[in-house]
């Protein structure tokens, strides 16, 4: 009985003394942290994806509070609504931001880009890229091992087994840029979503000369420059045999898409084109030849 009493009293005494020490220490060595940082962090989506350019959500919150202005700061996951919440907490004004999305700039499907070798190493794009040029004749295009799929935290990018290429689910993509960073060949670009989600871009990153590029892939950009000439807004530049459409200048007129002989320029989410007056005539011709045969 005595033994138990001694143990209870001594442990209780140690606990009491420690509690006093901890209380004094927490008061004396307290570091002041702006309470707004916690509030802002709570308003963020807590994805900790790093898409904003800061180390996690709390890092971004601290940066927002410290900077005193929200200019150039954007949580790509939450987008405008979250930034407005943050602005309300801080009493600042949210700057208008353009929603963005990841686009895969390669159309080297199994049909367009024949396989010439077989890779049996580790299923990782980073390893494959450091080992050799890839399974096809194109040394710039998608390797198809799916590093971008592994990198995505939002289940927004998946490999299409039919084409062998990754496809972005626009409704889930937050444009955090993780896939773009994971891609060893810099195929994935974070582009503005565009008006009504409509955008035009070059779906190729091949910098080889036209002859070589075309041999490797039927939908490769061959650097012919037709799109540059046809663009009325000077939005297209040609560098190293590869065209690039500047999203800031592009007005989505789709003239370049019509002009591209390789079909390397794509326009997404546009309504189908109205048939042109000469189109029926062109269609009629083959019909005639069939009839003759």
């Amino acid at each position: 009985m005595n033994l138990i009493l001694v143990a209870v009293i001594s442990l209780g005494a140690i606990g009491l003394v420690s509690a006093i020490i901890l209380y004094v220490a927490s008061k004396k060595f307290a570091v002041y942290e702006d309470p707004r940082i916690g509030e802002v962090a709570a308003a963020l989506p807590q994805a900790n994806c790093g898409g904003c350019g800061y180390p996690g959500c709390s890092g971004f919150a601290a940066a927002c509070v410290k900077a005193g202005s929200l200019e150039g700061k954007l949580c790509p996951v939450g987008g405008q609504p979250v930034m407005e919440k943050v602005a309300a907490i801080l009493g600042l004004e949210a700057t208008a931001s353009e929603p963005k999305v990841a686009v895969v700039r390669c159309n080297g499907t199994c049909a367009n880009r024949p396989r010439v070798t077989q890779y049996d190493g580790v299923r990782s794009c980073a390893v494959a890229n450091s080992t050799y040029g890839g399974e096809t004749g194109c040394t710039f295009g998608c390797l198809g091992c799916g590093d971008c799929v592994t990198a995505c935290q939002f289940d927004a990018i998946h490999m299409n087994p039919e084409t062998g290429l990754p496809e972005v689910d626009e409704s889930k993509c937050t444009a955090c840029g993780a896939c773009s960073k994971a891609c060893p060949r810099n195929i994935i670009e974070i582009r503005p979503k565009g008006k009504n989600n409509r955008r035009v871009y070059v779906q190729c990153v091949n910098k080889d000369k036209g002859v070589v590029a075309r041999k490797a892939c039927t939908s490769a950009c061959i650097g012919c420059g037709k799109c540059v000439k046809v663009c009325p807004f000077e939005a297209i530049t040609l560098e190293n045999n590869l065209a690039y459409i500047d999203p800031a200048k592009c007005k989505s007129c789709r003239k370049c898409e019509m002009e591209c002989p390789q079909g390397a320029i794509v326009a997404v989410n546009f309504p189908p084109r109205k048939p042109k007056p000469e189109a029926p005539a062109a269609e009629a011709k083959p019909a005639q030849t069939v009839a003759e045969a």
Partner: protein
Amino acid sequence: MKTFRIGGVHPAENKLSAGKAIETLALPKQAVFPLSQHIGAPAVPVVKKGDVVKVGTKIAEAGGFVSAAIFSSVSGKVNKIDSVIDASGYRKPAIFIDVEGDEWEESIDRSTELVKECSLTPEEIVGKIKNAGVVGMGGACFPTHVKLTPPPGCRAECVIINAVECEPYLTADHRLMLEHPDEILVGVGILMRAVKVSKAYIGIENNKPDAIRLMKEKAAAYPGIEVVPLKVKYPQGGEKQLIDAVIGRQVPAPPAIPINVGAVVQNVGTAFAVYEAVQKNKPLFERVVTVTGKSLKNPSNFLTRMGTPMSQLIEAAGGLPEDTGKVIGGGPMMGKALANTEVPICKGSSGVLLMNDKEARRSAPQPCIRCAKCVSACPMGLEPYLLATCSAHGDWERVEHEMIMSCIECGSCQFTCPSHRPMLDYIRLGKGKVGGIIRARNAKK
């Protein structure tokens, strides 16, 4: 018998072509010379389309100190300067020459007579080697003149000749020793003169008794050259492993290099190339290449002009066997699977290996069972399982701390792994990333 202290494995030797004398391969129709055949800056072309060149004409000059000139191996006309898919599978700039006849530069001494005397100064020797575009012929292709110019504060004490040929299948160096022992020994003497030392060792593995006997017999007439027989163990041909095996010194971790322990290591093929460059004024434009494989009709050793497509060598050795699974440039341990057989022979191409389906297939990786066989096999004393795992997770700080830059990419870890884990694939990736980080850090300073 001597060997290196840490790790090592013993793969099946399979030296199928050891008994085959070196044959001279026919000239190609078109020779292709990639501008980046060596470690360092790519060479800069000095010819243009339509130029007429002879055998031994300089077609590209060194693009910096750590770089090497490239010489035409054929006579003919420059067809174009374009790009070619090299052994890495990527397109690299290259010079294409259409072959017409076989006309040599007059300055080259084409006689087979042995020229023993060399009275040049070390500087003149290094200059001649540099002007002949000689690089390490073992496979790494480090420019030889750089190795013969010790950095300030370092002094060479001995020359070590790498005649180990520890890669299975390859026999090019073995045949070279049997057929040109005197030329090699004169070359070694020139190398000793170039770095001002009086001692040289020739390390030969015990599986080449005929070469050891012949070299020992001939070396008696050359003062200061000693033949050292070594126990058969892979990767004894690694520079650091060879130094440990022959003189018992260990090279510290990078950035230390062999010269820090007083050793200058050169391949036996390089010694031969140095002899030809200094005594015969013949630049480096041909080499011995082993074409081998279990299913190949006629495994052979060919004296091949640079720029010859590998397909021509395979054809000369009996054609591509039907069950070919992979075509490897180099040996089975460190060689690289080729994307196509039109890849030209370069200064560092020691062999072409045709693996059959069965040999080429990689087994499916299983989970690591913590047996630590890779740790015992690593000749650099690293922990390959750890480096591979950390590289796979992108922890570059950790792998740098675990000395990933010391890895010589010999593949012993992957070879011994009972779970067939693709460790080297990940380690190579990590090495590349950490190398980039270190370069960026140094550039900032």
